[in-house]
């Protein structure tokens, strides 16, 4: 058996629907059609009335989820693309995100955000919004990089009593496969050492974990042992694991697919600089996508975001210091 990242997401939703009567799914084209990416294929038939097609109304989709959550449900909202959540932004950050603090009543909604770049998708079907949502209080931001995490973290997302943004990466949908689904997993909030090393630490998440692993592989051929930390969730961010790794290696490169200003990589660097300054043997570095909209043509797209190649070259510079 071979399970893709996308299939893991479908199976997690199937499992959630089967095991928890509070769960329902709401999103555009997710019913009989099974979703733009087929992440809900077959679920409409298997769980009648619980997999519901929404109008093109992202604001109302999230608003509806908040109300249902207040009344004890566990909605999973599918955005057709993460990019379109910009239209549901206000409900996510100002309504869901403030609910618990203001009222003491939790707001257990999960919003699935098909995220990240793929060739030919262009400025409005490629975005990663993890860093935008992580900036706001009251939200949990999951960024799974593996088939296993896609499965277990989505199941955990549904159980978390707080609004959770599930940033699933579209590039990994078909590219990533696993033999089986896991029975256990690290809890949300804990990072994972994706590859151990001693010469430098790369902190990454989502699709960038794989680019980083490839870069580490490349550098291994040159005699460098690079440690790769997979954040798994950018908020909460597991500072202890990051600091532990930098303590071992003394060198840090943070890699993210979001735009360069602010965001997850700046947060990683800031935490290490503030709390692990003495651990650093070289200036910590970061690598993000370029500060332009995400270009359509693959020639441009493939250098817009960090890749194994640019990560490897940043690492070489970092190791030279």
């Amino acid at each position, binding site marked *: 058996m071979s399970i893709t990242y996308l299939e893991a997401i479908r199976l997690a939703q199937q499992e959630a629907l089967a095991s928890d009567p509070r769960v*329902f799914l709401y999103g555009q084209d997710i019913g009989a059609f099974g979703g733009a990416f087929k992440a809900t294929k077959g679920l409409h038939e298997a769980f009648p*009335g*619980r997999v519901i097609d*929404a*109008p093109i*109304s992202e*604001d*109302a*989709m*999230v*608003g*509806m*989820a*908040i*109300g*249902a*959550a*207040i*009344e*004890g*449900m566990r*909605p999973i909202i599918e955005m057709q693309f993460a990019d379109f959540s910009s239209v549901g932004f*206000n*409900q996510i950050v*100002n*309504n869901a*995100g*403030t*609910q*618990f*603090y*203001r*009222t*003491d*009543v*939790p707001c257990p909604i999960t919003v699935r955000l098909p995220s990240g770049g793929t060739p030919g998708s262009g400025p409005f079907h490629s975005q990663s919004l993890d860093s935008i949502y992580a900036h706001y*209080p*009251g939200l*949990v931001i999951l960024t799974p990089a593996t088939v296993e995490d896609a499965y277990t973290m989505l199941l955990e997302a549904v159980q*978390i*009593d*707080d609004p959770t943004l599930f940033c699933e990466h579209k590039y990994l949908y078909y590219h990533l496969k696993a033999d089986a689904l896991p029975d256990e997993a690290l*809890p*949300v*909030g804990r990072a994972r050492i994706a590859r151990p090393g001693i010469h430098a630490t790369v902190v990454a998440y989502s699709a960038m974990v794989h680019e980083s692993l490839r870069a580490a592989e490349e550098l291994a051929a040159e005699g460098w042992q690079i440690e790769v930390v997979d954040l798994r969730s950018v*908020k*909460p*961010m597991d*500072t202890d694991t990051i600091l532990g790794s930098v303590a071992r290696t003394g060198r840090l490169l943070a890699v993210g697919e979001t735009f360069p200003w602010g965001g997850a990589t700046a947060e990683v660097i800031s*935490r290490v600089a*503030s*709390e692990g300054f003495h651990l650093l043997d070289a200036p910590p570095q970061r690598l993000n996508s370029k500060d332009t909209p995400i270009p359509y043509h693959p020639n441009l797209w493939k250098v817009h975001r960090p890749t194994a190649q640019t990560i490897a070259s940043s690492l070489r510079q970092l190791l030279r210091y």
Partner: protein
Amino acid sequence: MCYGRFRNVATDGLRPPAPPPPTNHSILTTRTHARILEGQTVIVPGTDLTGAFRDQYTRTYRHMLLARVLEDRLAAVYRAGGKIVGGVYVGRGQEAFSAALGVQLRKGHDVYGPLIRDQAGRIAFGEPILDAIRTYLGSIKGPMRGRDGNIHRGRPREGMPPMISHLGSFTAVINGMLMARRLQGREAERAVGGTGIGDGGLSTGAFHEALNQAAVERLPLVVAVANNQYAYSTPTSRQFACHDLIDRARGYGVRGQVVDGTDLAACLKAFTDAVQRARAGEGPQVVIGKLLRLSGHGEHDDASYVDPALRKGQAGRDCLEVAQTFLLDQDWATAAELSAWQREAESEVDAAFAIVYREALPDPYQESWQALSRADLVEGSSHAGPEL
């Protein structure tokens, strides 16, 4: 809702907004009486004027009265300075329209999503006035515990979630609460969700999406559209261009009614009908009330931009005065009873304020400073801003 500097109330000959009421006055002064006689309640044909209706009318009137007394007091406290910061937003002139919906809904059964000017609806639905006073004053015993203020209050677990400021975004939340009951297989309970929107809020994309969503799902939603002629200073001519707002409802495939929002009898009739239809599974209902905001946008605003002609017209009538005349005309209450009710309302407000004044205000050192219910997912304090 809106920040603004304290300003003196203009005394420009027009009725000044929300003057603090003299404590021991009779509600039926000569001047008041005269106004009531000018504009009569129109008794909607088919209205049952006996028994249940009389009871409902009288009860609703007393909710309106309590709301008026409470809000006048809040405004006075705000003006005196010190105790209430931020602002006070009252529903003066909208009590009949607001309470007429609230009184149809059963707390613990139905859902109610009150907006800015729904103090009367809140009372009618069953929100204790302590919740209002505690929220305005920031008491830690209030539902918002100083974390949010004034009209941004509610108790989601009791069917009355708090609005956020962003107009229009509340309606979909009410949809979700109704949707949950459907998904829980509780449709037989026939719970209804009531909420409000203003003539300004109608322009928001959020409200459009939500009303359309309710229509597509045929949810038992009742929307009270309070067309009080202004959104802050903006007249409806700058807000929409349709001939009649009832056309809006039709555009969603939703049943609409228009009522004189100053006339409690008409409002009760309209909302009784709307709520009944929603309960019966006929889908969303819209009731549009024609009225006028008899106050500033908030108590910092003198509303000098309001067209004097509107104040003098039908929409400018004070619904409370209209209801008083009606009660007297129907012999449902004597002038003495009206005065007694007024005194009761004042005592109730006095007593509540006295309680809240003794309550503690929030203490930042006691505050959890946690925006997540899952404490283990809260970021370590070193990433969470200044330590105390």
